[in-house]
């Protein structure tokens, strides 16, 4: 099962560089301006990050909510719906650069807190509804009639860490414009980094609006986890190794599960990450079996 962990690390590394191939831009402060930015990545990856090749779906969605028409983006919604139905939160575990970053942060030697976050985990749905949808649509500039990207502006640590810090480091003119908002965003980013060193994937579990979207699909996604009840001995080893603090044997498709595979590694063969075939997916028999 070491193979699964290595596979995950490899996948995270590959997807990080696929979404952020222009690493040299970190040193120049330039951003990529090519046509790939028409496409949204499935993970949280700020489009102002100098290395980013594609656009962030949450940033793009807010662009339309806050825009002149205050409309929902069909393109972004379609990408999220399709990615969610196929992968669910597998994207959080294997594709998202912010998740990858938090996995690194969690490796820092600090005391660790294993919290179920039973109530706090619902905060991400509030963040999605309020900061991504409602506020950009309702709080409008009196002259332009446009809203603001509230999540990007006031919360998103991805923008602060991977966009603001490298861009401001290499651009003195922009650096001279920083003030209270930058101080606030830096404080939020540092608080999230600090908490993520102690609590596994704190941002994904509590704050991330993209995680909130994908969690809605975890129970029905094509890529899912299964538990063979005939092989399960109820030893609870899966629960002990789960960093998300769920019980994989009884909730293999919990909205919180990011398919990290720790439980599969520990299990004697009852738990496995599986993907339904296209035939299963469209089959009526498959509908009945669930």
């Amino acid at each position, binding site marked *: 099962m070491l193979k699964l962990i290595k596979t995950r690390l490899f996948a995270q590394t590959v997807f990080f560089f696929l979404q952020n191939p222009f690493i040299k831009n970190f040193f120049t402060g330039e951003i990529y301006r090519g046509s790939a930015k028409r496409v949204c990545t499935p993970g949280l990856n700020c489009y102002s990050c100098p290395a980013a090749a594609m656009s962030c779906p949450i940033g793009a969605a807010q662009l339309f909510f806050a825009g002149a028409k205050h409309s929902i983006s069909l393109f972004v919604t379609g*990408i999220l719906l399709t990615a969610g139905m196929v992968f669910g939160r597998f994207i959080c575990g294997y594709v998202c650069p912010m998740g990858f970053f938090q996995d690194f942060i969690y490796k820092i030697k600090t005391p660790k807190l294993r919290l179920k976050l039973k109530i706090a985990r619902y905060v991400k749905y509030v963040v999605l509804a309020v900061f991504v949808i409602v506020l950009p649509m309702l709080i409008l500039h009196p002259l332009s009639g446009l809203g603001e990207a509230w999540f990007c502006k006031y919360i998103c640590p991805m923008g602060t860490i991977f966009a603001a810090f490298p861009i401001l480091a290499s651009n003195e003119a922009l650096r001279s414009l920083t003030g209270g908002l930058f101080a606030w965003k830096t404080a939020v980013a540092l608080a999230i980094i600090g908490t993520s060193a102690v609590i596994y994937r704190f941002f994904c579990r509590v704050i991330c609006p993209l995680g909130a979207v994908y969690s809605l699909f975890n129970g029905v996604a094509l890529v899912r986890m299964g538990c063979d009840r005939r092989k399960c001995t109820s030893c609870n080893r899966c629960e002990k190794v789960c960093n998300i603090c769920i019980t994989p044997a009884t909730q293999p498709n919990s909205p919180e599960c990011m398919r990290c595979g720790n439980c599969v590694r520990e299990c004697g063969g009852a738990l496995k990450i599986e993907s339904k075939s296209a035939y299963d997916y469209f089959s009526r028999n498959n509908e009945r079996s669930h």
Partner: protein
Amino acid sequence: MRAAFLIIGIVLIICGVVQGEPDEIMRKAVTVCLECIGIG
């Protein structure tokens, strides 16, 4: 039901492309987002 959602997702992507949404996203994404970097 699952297949329906998947098909709806793909149809939404196509509708968005037809309406030119990717171009609108690109116009925003090719400039540094001052809000994102804490200058807004």
